[in-house]
């Protein structure tokens, strides 16, 4: 089938402001949007710039605004998008070129929540730190995050206030706060209890709607708020 892609283009070295490029491509219904973008870049306009790596919804490189919603270009099929497809860079982060944005502000917030296991006791002699299936279940949902930034860049609180730590960082914090093997719960709850931490979340649910990993992000944020209120994880 033949579809028209409307892609928001911007080259800071040439363009004063972004413009819309229109490209007609022939695609199979089961092609990914990423395949269609490749057809444009490889056969029509080599200057089209986008990020992608694994092309299978795991690396989290190709988040973009597709028909107004944050999606991974490699996870959405052409048959679900209609004959006219608009593609824009994700919102709230500086555009470097075309569909590529500067992810540094996003990753700075990720680093701020100390995204690594903190446990100062040595592991039991000769073996790993054990955890019951029930304890593992508590943070199972938030281990699925691939840091694609779909959630944070769909969040109106983040658009309005770039200092907000954002849903992705809270999801990552949740993953360690509710991990029974981690000892820095109080420290991370203090980070989350910042003015620009969980309290900027207005439960808009945009993050839940767009998460390609189907994480219940607003619930995770609610868990963290409740843990702060109760002074720790119970």
């Amino acid at each position, binding site marked *: 089938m033949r579809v028209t892609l409307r892609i928001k283009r911007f080259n800071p070295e040439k363009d004063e402001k972004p413009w819309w490029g229109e490209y007609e491509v022939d695609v199979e219904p089961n092609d990914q949007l990423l395949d269609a973008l490749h057809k444009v870049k490889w056969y029509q306009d080599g200057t089209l710039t986008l990020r992608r790596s694994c092309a299978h919804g795991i690396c989290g490189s190709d988040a973009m605004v597709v028909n107004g919603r944050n999606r991974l270009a490699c996870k959405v099929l052409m048959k679900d998008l209609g004959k006219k497809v608009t593609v824009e860079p994700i919102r709230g*982060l500086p555009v470097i070129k075309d569909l590529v944005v500067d992810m540094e502000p996003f990753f700075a917030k990720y680093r701020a929540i100390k995204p690594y296991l903190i446990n100062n006791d040595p592991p039991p002699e000769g073996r790993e730190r054990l955890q019951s299936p029930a304890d593992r279940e508590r943070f199972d949902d938030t281990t699925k995050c691939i840091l694609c930034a779909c959630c944070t860049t769909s969040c109106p609180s*983040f658009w309005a206030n770039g200092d907000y730590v954002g849903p992705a960082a809270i999801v990552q914090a949740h993953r360690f706060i509710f991990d029974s093997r981690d000892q820095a719960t109080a420290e991370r709850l203090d980070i989350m209890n910042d003015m620009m931490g969980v309290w900027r979340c207005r439960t808009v649910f945009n993050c839940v709607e767009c998460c390609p990993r189907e994480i219940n992000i607003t619930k995770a944020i609610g868990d963290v708020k409740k843990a702060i209120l109760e002074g720790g994880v119970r």
Partner: protein
Amino acid sequence: MALKTRTRSYGSPNRFEVASWYFMRVSGAALLVLAVFHLFYMHVIAGVDAITFEWIVNERWNGPLGMFWRTYDLALLLFALLHGANGARWVIDDYIHGRGANLAVKSALYVLTAILILMGMQVIFTVPLHSQQTALSALVTALGR
């Protein structure tokens, strides 16, 4: 659009923000009951035609359930204004980033909220119990100020 690249450090815990978040949950639940029953009572049980200063002072605030109604109206006044003002504070923090402008708008909000609460409380507290004639005049005087 958030286009900042500088990184802010996180980790100054904010007790007030925890309390304010919890207050919004509690007052929200309370308002659901208080405000809905208020509307139901005034519009369906009492009827819009019956609502006059006289009726409020004589029947509502000095009737057999006078203390109940004064407490009810006080709770409605405080919860509604504080809940609304706190929500407005969040909106201001979300959208007004300049330090001076943020402080100015928030100060105006706090002053306005305080004035509205004080005016409401003045009416609820200064209308005397079981003194219908003076109660009415006190109410009229209070409102006339």
